[in-house]
């Protein structure tokens, strides 16, 4: 079973929909139909709270304020109001993220996932493993399916830059400025040449993906 998620939502159709989608995405939702002024110990063991700001009884912001006095659990705010002040206030009170209604269920699940994933991403890892790739950032060595691969300095820096932000697209401009040798007047063309060489060396596994309009991204890849 996945992470337990507390949903505080007073609207029945919306609440049951969200519960359904969270369950479908592999989470275990707990649904409260009203806001409560929480004190330490009231909060069930959950990994994340989805909180609607407009609640009967207790206003969502008050509930958030009370919650933050004893818990650091991530809170995702649902807001119907298209008002920045509310969001700024919620973020100040310790909310981690917000969503404005209406939203697609997919969007919500994505945000919940991103929020739950975050803490592990913040650590700088010495060794990054992406699919068949194993990149030792300190030892400057790369293995594909256990087989060591020889890379030039620029090729390794390129791979390392992508490996530090797996699943995220890194812009070509950033790579040109931070990876290529500054003395050699690097251009995006040069970058593309390096990338194609790197791809060839990494063999059949297609890990370095071109992101249209943006740059490149490291993905687990699929065997060709």
């Amino acid at each position, binding site marked *: 079973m996945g992470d337990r998620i507390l949903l505080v939502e007073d609207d029945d159709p919306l609440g049951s929909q969200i519960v359904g989608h969270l369950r479908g995405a592999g989470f275990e939702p707990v649904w409260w139909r009203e806001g409560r002024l929480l004190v330490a110990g009231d909060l069930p063991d959950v990994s994340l709270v989805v909180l609607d700001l407009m609640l009967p009884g207790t206003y969502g912001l008050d509930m958030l304020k009370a919650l933050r006095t004893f818990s650091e659990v991530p809170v995702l705010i649902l807001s119907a109001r*298209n*008002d920045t002040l509310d969001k700024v206030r919620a973020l100040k009170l310790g909310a981690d993220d917000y969503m404005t209604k209406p939203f*697609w269920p997919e969007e919500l699940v*994505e945000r919940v996932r991103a929020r739950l994933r975050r803490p592990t991403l913040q650590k700088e890892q010495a060794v990054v493993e992406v699919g068949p790739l194993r990149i030792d950032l300190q030892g400057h060595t790369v293995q594909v399916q256990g087989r060591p691969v020889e890379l030039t300095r620029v090729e390794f820096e390129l791979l390392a830059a992508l490996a530090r*932000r797996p699943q995220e697209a890194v812009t070509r401009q950033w790579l040109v400025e931070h990876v290529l040798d500054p003395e050699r007047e690097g251009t995006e063309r040069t970058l593309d040449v390096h990338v194609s060489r790197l791809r060839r060396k990494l063999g059949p596994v297609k890990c370095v993906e071109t*992101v249209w309009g943006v*740059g490149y991204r490291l993905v687990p890849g699929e065997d060709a």
Partner: protein
Amino acid sequence: MKLRLRLALTAVAVTVPAVFALVQVEHSVRRRTTDEVIIASTMSQMQSGGRERCEAAPETWMVRSRAQRPPWEREGLPDGNGGPPSNTPRPNDEGPPKLGARGPLGRRLPPVSLYPFDGQFVSRNPQAPAMDEELRKGVQDDGVGVRRYSKADGALVQDLLLRMPWEGGPCEYVLARRVEPAESPEVGLPPLYIWGVPTFILLSAMVVALGPVVQRLRRLTEEVRASSGSGYEQPVTVNGSDEIAELARAFQQARAEIQARMAHQQAREQTLRDFLANTTHDVMTPLTVLQGHLAAMQQRMRAGEPLESGLMLSAMSEAHYMASLVHNLGAAARLEAGAPQVQHAPVDLNALVSRVLGRHQPIARPQRIALESGVPATPTWVMGDETLLEQAVSNVVLNSIRYGREDGHVAVVLESTRQQGFNLRVIDDGPGISEEDRSRILERRFRGNEARTREPQGQGLGLHIVHNVVELHGWKMTLAPSEYGGLEVAFTGPLMPPPG
């Protein structure tokens, strides 16, 4: 209180005390003068034989002097008049003072009687008036004792006790008594015709002079009432250059001001009404499409036909468009309201881009449009209104998706520049916008209905908001053909200065 009544009352309130005070001053001056005259004449009388006569018969000595005139009218010193008093009064003494050729002020003083007193303030003359402490004290301290009192019939009695320039004898002190009859002009106010007539004339003149003023004020009041009744359409007449004309002018100015404000208010209300009507129309159109799609789906389901993915996608797209539209309307309302409604707080553009992608991904994916983004590794902080900025970026992205081709691409690229700035680009490979339309979007201030149509290329309210938000934040926006054949919209602006 009416103006005239108030003025008349004020005049009376000022005049009466003033007249009273003047009369008091005049009385006191006259009294002092009279005292001096009596003292001087008594002294000279006593020194020129009066003493001898007095000391010869102190039991019966008593003088009734001839009536005296005030010093400013007298031709000479009063006659010393002595001798045993006779009961037959002299012709000069009889009758009330005549108001004759000498006029009101030329009246004679009433007669003065003299009575002798010795060193112990005792008179041998039984007719002498009673002595009292006030007189004794006065003569011992100042050489002259003065006593004044009114008799029961209103007559004013004036007693002056004088010390003679010799010692001893029954005539060491002499009391001079003068009695002013009650009807004498020295008692009370001067006659009414002296001060009453000028006062009355003055009052009448004031009241009459006020007539035209009051008239003009009334006319002005009527005009102002008529003007306010006509919604401040009707002007008031201004003539002359006095204070009333000034008042009329001030009202004219106020009227112009009110009219301007009313016109402004009416224009705003009209805008609001139009806005509401158009909004209703704008929301109703996609809602109708959505209802149509849902009904079609239901019919197909009932007929057992498989659901068409295109229909479903279109329905989703309409719902998505509606949500965006309502957000845009909210943003437009806030932009219209101006600065107070706009927040100024730190915004992380990385998170903003991620939210925009998250919002539109569910629509892009089924249309087989790849929606991608690239942001710097660390947060990109700018100052601004998060909701408005997100809406602006969102509008551009949604435009690219809506008008993108199947299997197309939309990318959002955020980069920081070396000059403490950022560069946010939305690139697509869709049909793009012609040169002509591009400049039109940037140059033209979309207003009212022009900004609200969905066509062409959807640069309606959405792009209008983008333009305004960018302007509000002091950013720059450029539209150019992208290197992939579509459109590239670029935003540039300053990063938030690093804290501290």
